[in-house]
């Protein structure tokens, strides 16, 4: 799974991270996999890009390799469905932590 966050009120405040959902040594992989199981990504992908009405909200791009089938979703921060929100929050936190650790 690959995650990008762009947009917001300032250019440059970008986040990105990647997660191997099958990696047993990745402590977050199992939790993210379980949370993703509650989201109908295929349905979201069909409606993608989900654009909001306003301005300056974040733009999220999510690409998931679902058993060889690649699913990509682009959505405005104001259009994140409630079941996807925990996934986004964890990915943001992961990306911020990686950014902090990167020299």
């Amino acid at each position, binding site marked *: 799974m690959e995650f990008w966050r762009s*947009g*917001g*009120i*300032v*250019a440059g405040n970008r986040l990105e991270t990647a997660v191997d959902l099958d990696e047993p040594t990745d402590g977050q992989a199992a939790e993210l996999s379980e949370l993703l199981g509650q989201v109908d990504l295929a349905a979201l992908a069909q409606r993608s890009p989900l654009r909001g009405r*306003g*301005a*300056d*909200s974040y733009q999220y791009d999510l690409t998931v390799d679902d058993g060889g089938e690649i699913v990509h979703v682009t959505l405005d921060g*104001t259009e994140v469905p409630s079941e996807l929100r925990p996934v986004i929050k964890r990915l943001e936190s992961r990306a911020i932590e990686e950014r902090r650790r990167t020299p």
Partner: protein
Amino acid sequence: MSCSCRDPLHCIVPETVLRNIAEHGDERQRRAALKTLGVDQTLRAARVETGARLAASGPPRASVAGALSPPSVERVVRNAQNGMDLTAPVVRREGDGKTGDPAVDEAYEYLGDTWSFFFEVFARNSIDQNGMALDAVVHFDEDFDNAFWNGEQMVFGDGSGQLFTRLTQSLTVCGHELGHGVIQFDGPLVYQRQSGALNESIADCFGAMVAQYKEGQTADAASWLIGSEILAEGVSGRALRDMANPGTAFDDDVLGKDPQPGHMDDFVETVQDSGGVHINSGIPNRAFYLLATTLGGHSWESAGRILYATLGHPRLRANSSFSRFARINLDVARTLYGAQSEQVDAVVGAWTTVGVEL
């Protein structure tokens, strides 16, 4: 008429004298006269502004009756308590006293400043020209390093303390967000690629003008920085954006280097950020800065009037490019000030300097 008061309008002044001051006084006197005259002056200013837009572009989109209705600012501020519920309870309504919560009270004050700018300068009654309530949500989410306009409300985070601090601290940010609402009603400008970058730039122009107007600053004395108040300690930078010098606002280990170009030669093609709307807005930002400083005086008087009339122009399409916008800019300047005016020369110079074809 003589008056021993320090403020010449604090004395009992006849309405006819107030009207004369509103028409011929300096900026401070005009603002005071506008406030004192209230509805009557709003009607006069609305007729002047409507006339200017009519002269520049034809019939206004909003109803003239709406523009002439008595002004009434209405503010509501909600506290999301670090959740994401945008229908959170209202904690401060129009006329309520300070709450003691800095985010609530800052949002309330700056919404009022922004409303007052649009009303006193452009005779515009709120976002929709018809007294739409200004609805702000503060304390949105946790460690939220952002503020946004969702089509109906302005939403402010508290910042993480790592990148940004409380975003309600910035009048330019508040004016920017409310400016998006004005653009939504007067444009629209689709929030993608060049039209989206214009949307972003015009919001920055409004934010800058609101702050300058509150302080009575001239264009050459202003900082032209957006969001200078909210960078966290330790962040290497001066602001979110520098309209005078795009690309120089920050250079930070975490934020990276400010990616804004100031010339079309450096236009950024990207799919991120809705096609780079916060990146390429640097180009029209610099054009507006050049226009305002070339003309001198206060930015809202000529440069702001040209910008505002361009936004309301019927030839401005939802997917307008920088070039189309610049051409309408030029037509508006010709209509308002004459083909041989310094304003026309300044518009040509500004857009040419940033590499936008007219």
